[in-house]
């Protein structure tokens, strides 16, 4: 077996493994339950909450991540490596730990200031958004930085020598050139936010019709031994996730041509 064949076989084997996982859902799949579970108000609420909170968290993440990524990509500054490392925190630390840290921040840490001003985050819908934001902001920054790193600084330099301020050069040159990559990064961030479980359930809890997102609903259905509902909910999540990822791949691929 050639090296090339060997490596491709490994890729196929891994893909096959995940495909098997999806197929095993079908052992418990009953089309009638799918429809009734899908149209159940609790499912619809979870789906809507997941999409809304996920979108909101993504927007928040990107709003902060875009300038941060630009700074990290274009400028050398003291503690740049430290910043880079801290942005990895949500990846390195287990989501439950991240959620617990958030919970402590809002209940006994500096976050109590918000509580005093009537802003409650734990066990609230806002907690869902905050947890998803915390889980995705670092990743979004790193994704966007990678996109910006691909755009040579030459373009901005030329733009500035022609009279454009740094912000104008960014708006008229760097942003349009990185649009596809940024869209792909945004979609990935969104998928990650929608699928977030550990931090969300730890900070916002799992209250039906309040903070129960789709992943939490899956966990609750499984805990209640309702396997057909579990399978249905997973189908919805897999469908949403795979579609967005595929869209991201298409966009990124077209950007490269």
């Amino acid at each position, binding site marked *: 077996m050639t090296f090339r064949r060997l490596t491709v076989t490994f890729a196929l084997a891994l893909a096959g493994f995940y495909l098997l996982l999806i197929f095993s859902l079908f052992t418990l799949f009953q089309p009638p339950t799918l429809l009734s579970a899908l149209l159940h108000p609790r499912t619809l609420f979870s789906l809507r909450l997941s999409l809304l909170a996920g979108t909101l968290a993504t927007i928040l993440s990107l709003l902060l991540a875009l300038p941060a990524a630009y700074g990290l990509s274009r400028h050398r500054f003291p503690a740049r490596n430290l910043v880079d490392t801290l942005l990895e925190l949500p990846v390195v630390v287990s989501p439950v730990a991240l959620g617990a840290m958030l919970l402590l921040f809002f209940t006994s840490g500096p976050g109590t200031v918000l509580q005093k001003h009537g802003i409650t985050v734990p066990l609230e819908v806002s907690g869902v958004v905050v947890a998803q934001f915390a889980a995705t902001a670092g990743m979004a920054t790193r994704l966007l930085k990678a996109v910006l790193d691909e755009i*040579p600084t*030459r*373009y901005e*330099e*030329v*733009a*500035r*020598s*022609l*009279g*454009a*301020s*740094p912000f*104008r050069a960014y708006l*008229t*040159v760097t942003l*349009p*050139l990185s649009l596809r990559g940024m869209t792909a990064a945004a979609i990935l961030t969104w998928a990650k936010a929608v699928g977030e479980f550990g931090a969300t359930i730890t900070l916002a809890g799992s209250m039906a019709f309040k903070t129960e997102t789709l992943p939490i609903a899956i966990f609750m259905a499984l805990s209640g031994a309702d396997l057909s509902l579990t399978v249905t909910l997973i189908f919805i999540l897999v469908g949403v996730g795979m579609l967005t990822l595929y869209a991201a791949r298409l966009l990124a691929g077209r950007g490269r041509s």
Partner: protein
Amino acid sequence: MTQGSERLTADIASPLLPLLALEEITVRAGTFFLPGLCLRVFPGEFHVLLGPTGAGKTLLLETVAGFLRPAAGRILLGGRDVTALPPEEREASYVPQDLALFPHLTVKDNIRYGLRWRRRPPGEVEPHLETLIRVTGIGPLLHRRPADLSGGEKQRVALVRALAIRPRLLLMDEPLSALHLQLRAEMRDLLRRLHRELRFTALLVTHDLEDAFALGDRASVLLGGRLHTAPSMEHLYRYPPNTAVARFFGLPNLFPATVKEVRGREIVLEVEDLGALLVRLPEGAEPVLDSPNLNPGRHLFLGLHPEEITLVKPDRRHLPRKNLFSGRIARISPRGRSFCLLFSTARAVLEIHIPSYAMEKLPIHEGWEGEVEIKEDKAFLMPN
């Protein structure tokens, strides 16, 4: 407003005032270090900055453009201190080596890019743009994107984009290096024509001698962290300021020598491996040599341009001559337009170039024994 009037006075004040002046500029970037460089570029001048790869030419250009802040020194542009100004306030258009045409914009939008930020009356902008488009012939390309342009076309578009804003100074970094020979010659020609027509001030960085000869009104060479400026490219080539520059030009025949006697402009040298040689200093060689210190006993270097060593035909030997050296031709190798002869004297080897047409009339061959003459005003001296 103030900027405009300031510029006007600076431009018409005096042609002797430099448009660009680098005063003791020190550049530090990573491990790279350029100490205390001075450079003057005068209004309307096409200045070529020569140097081998890795000499720091690009770094210096980026410092002038404003992408790098010098560690010390001042940059004056149009009489104004711009050392602390960002690139967008320097009005120095930059054409990088890879041109960096904006790939998402059409040619038309590329060349108008700078005009977006420089509001000027259309009556002033449009005729200027039309001239640029006419001279460069990019009219048919206006609606294309950079990806659909050939190398030469990209080159022209980048030039027009840079000149469209009527910059105080045009900065170019090896703009011709990516082109093949024929196109290179065409682009040089185009640059010269543009410069004649528009009289902009340019600073062009290159490692290519032909570019420098074809384009430079004046030339500087950056080598080993030192910058030497000459009144012309010919002058720089004719009288290299030191052996490092001479070697960069590919000049052979460099010999250590000692001053024996100084008689006005005439100097008798004792050249290592070659013997006594009489040299007459031409006008303009003094700044290179700091001649006040040109006393007997001084050590320096002698250089002989290989085109200017002449073979003495046997039938002319009876004429009175100085600076004659006898030896034999060790090797003759063709070099296209000329032949390269290696002439061995007792202890030295001289490289001699003879044009192909002249070669035909010479009765010489490998192993030929005879004499060569070094005309006393054709040698050049270098302090180190």
